[in-house]
């Protein structure tokens, strides 16, 4: 019965990665009407995640990168969106990590390394992720880039994830004013 209670408790709490809001550092750069987002979530490489990876589980960090324009009356307008993922698989025989980085389901690069700091960088840092808004940015308007992290699998399950508005494992945002 105690196990059942523990399992029930696990259903409502626990995740591989659970970052505080703002622990994903976002740096947007505007170039030729496009936004290049650089972000890093070094805190996402948690001991729990490391244990999971070294246990042979393929761990995926998915980052939802959104360019939005704030709105006081309605939901902030979504100007552009990108989804980048980093997936790592540890080979315990060779002691090497196989890391794949993808954008919108397309593999960007695949690397193998036995160095965990290097792997951590591949998993938690993305450089110059292109956000191409459908409409040109408005001069002197305020925008922000929000990055949300979703880590799978979860070591424990949470009923929060059944919430229709998906709950991320961490996020960060950076606001900027577009000046031509």
């Amino acid at each position, binding site marked *: *019965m105690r*196990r*059942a209670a523990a*399992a029930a408790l*696990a*259903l409502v709490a*626990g995740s591989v990665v659970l970052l505080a809001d703002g622990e994903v550092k976002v740096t947007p750069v505007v170039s030729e009407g496009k936004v290049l987002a650089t972000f890093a979530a070094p805190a996402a490489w948690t001991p729990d995640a490391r*244990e*999971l990876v*070294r*246990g*042979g*589980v*393929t761990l*995926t960090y998915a980052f939802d990168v959104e360019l939005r324009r704030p709105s006081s009356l309605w939901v902030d307008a979504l100007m552009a969106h990108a989804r980048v993922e980093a997936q790592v698989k*540890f*080979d*315990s*025989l*060779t*002691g090497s990590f196989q890391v794949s980085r993808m954008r919108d389901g397309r593999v960007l690069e695949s690397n193998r390394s036995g160095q965990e700091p290097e792997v951590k960088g591949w998993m938690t840092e993305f450089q110059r992720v292109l956000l191409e808004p459908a409409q040109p940015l408005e001069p002197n308007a305020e925008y922000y880039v929000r990055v949300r992290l979703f880590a*799978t*699998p*979860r*070591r*424990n*399950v949470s*009923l929060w*994830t*059944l919430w229709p508005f998906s709950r991320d494992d961490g996020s960060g945002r950076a606001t900027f004013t577009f000046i031509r």
Partner: protein
Amino acid sequence: MGILGISPGDPDARPDARRRPLDNPRVLIAAAVLLIGLLAGLIWLSNTTTEIALPVLAEGVFYAMIGVCVTLLLALGFVLARNLLKLWVEQRRAAPFARFRAKLVAALLAMSIIPAVLVLITGSQVILNTAARWFSEPVDEIVSAASSIARTFYQDRKEALELRSSRLARVVPAPAVVAGDESGVANMVKDELATLRDGMIEIYRVTGGPGTLPDVVLVVAVESPTLPGAAPDEEGRRTKEMIRASADRIAARVVETSNPATTEDQLANGAGLLRSAAPIRGPDGAILGVVLVSQQLTPDLRGSARLVTSAFERYTSLRLLQVPIQAVYLSIFLAVTLLILISATWLGLYLAKRITRPVQRLAEGARAIGAGQFDVRLEAESGDELGSLVEAFNVMAAELRTSREKLEQSGRDLEHKNVEVEARRRYIETILERVATGVISLDAGGRISTVNGAAERLLALGPDAAGQPAREVFDREDLRPLNVLLDVIARREPGGVVDARREPRGLVEEITLAREDREVHLAAAATALAGEQGEIEGAVLVLDDVTPLIRAQRVAAWRDVARRLAHEIKNPLTPIQLSAERMRRHFATAPPPTVALVSECTDAIITEVEALKGLVDEFAQFARLRGPRLVPTSLNLLIDETLALYGGVLQQSRVRFNRQFATDLPAVKVDAEQIRQVVINLIDNALEALGGPVAPVRPSGAPPTIAIATSHDRRNGLVRIVVSDNGPGVPAADRDKLFMPYYSTKGRGSGLGLAIVRRIVVEHGGGIEAGEADPSGTVFTIELPAA
């Protein structure tokens, strides 16, 4: 449509003629197939979870199952809530069998929910316990140790190879490599290869000068004959090419990164080729070439190591993802339980409906029949006992309808007969009310049941006589003679039973009732009423007023006497008168005393003879009174003309005529002369009673008055002439004798006046009575038929 339906043609009696979807066999089969399919899917899923990648299982499958469980839970809640709400509403409406149905549903739900929940709890506990056993400490240790052995072995081989490549890079003569002198390095490499089993050594030199990208060129490559790909077949050639290409890439990467590199290539036979590359550096540290040392890991060795590490990874993954995987199995188990619950609940509710609905329909049918709808028919859709019950109900309803129709027909016949009996009763009552014969009916207890109008008049009974014992009513002084009838009836019913066939039940008696002013002669008949068994149920007294008949008999007798008297007396009178006149003439010459004597005697004789002649004439008139010649006549005018005859006589008199004529008096068929004679006779008698034309004032101070009134009795169809005076009146005992011939209260006259008056009135179809006037005097009332 449900199991039962009310017969068509009676929409009001068809509360559930609409076919329900769940009563459709196709829908039922589809629902059953869907449930079985879902169940089979869940079982398949639980069997294939081992083949699904753990992240997929822990993420996608888990949340999919949670979605399924939530959906099933909502479906179960909906089914339960809907049916419980319906049961609650039915109970609130006090619908028939609602309580029974609620109990049945509760029992069926309890029978399905309690075991299912118990199985869910137990099964969940078993899953959790089993999962806990998977990751026990010994298993942990074994798996970790095996993985560590494999990893250590691999690392040892790798490190040994790296040491070998590093050492070889240091001892290989760099100038020979730079010069591409194969023979300069081949011997040393071959010697090294001899110490390497299933190995391969390759030496590359770096080409390209300053300003150009460095490249690597193979200088020498030697390999063990046991190395795969050494065989001269197609497979071996391809393997060799693949190995060579891989070596080129490794060498190029070492040159590019200036660092040693270690990789593993997988060979076609499943073996692995562990490769370690080290740069050959010049005195200035520049990279002049690359030494690549490779050694094959046999398929068995490599496979075992990989198997161990894979098992370790799977085990670790399972342990790390223990909770989500447990949740997946729990969710599958929960979904199966919910499916079973939904199936059982739905089946229970359906069965409850199948059981209670026919009974409910039967109750509704019974209520409809109770409300008079005998054409209600229930349709049985099942051939089981309920179907037989429905058939029995229909037979009962049909028989009830037939009985009802017969009853209604009997009722109509009875009503018709009642109408006839009622008409006959009214007819008889009318006759009884209209006939002059008095009829009194008595019940078995001797109480008066009915008294008709004639009996009330004859016996002077009030309307309250009905319901009273006949003996109490007849105990009145003047009615006591009627008790003889009751005595006779009582004597004729010893034991209360009369043999109607042997004994005459009627008795006819002539009874005379003495009233204060007259006598009433009745022909009374008492008849006992016997029932079918001969018991006495009552009696009927029939009373006929024979007083006029007796009077007529008396008058006829008197007329006969009068005729004889007239005949016997009148004949000798003429000789007597002639003899007296002769004697007077004979003694006319006699001496005066004699003459005077004779004259006196003969005058007396002649006077008396004349008187006798007058008397005889009246007798003769009485005896020979002609029949009336009836002509429509205004009685008011006739009486007025008659009274006018007294104008001269009463001119100086105190006597007054008081006329009270009815204005609506119809013309009456009478003989005007005879009626005038009647009126004159009555007025003469009144004048006589008042003392003649010079009548004095009455002792009360009132003037002597003769009142003449006429009236019209429409109800009885009579016209009345009332003549009264305020004279001294006639004693009550003598009033009935007034109309008898030769009875006179005046001490003179023939006494035939009122007898003639009565005879005239009777021959007009009427009657006359004498009564006492108020406050004094006599009143004569003549009743004549109006028509």
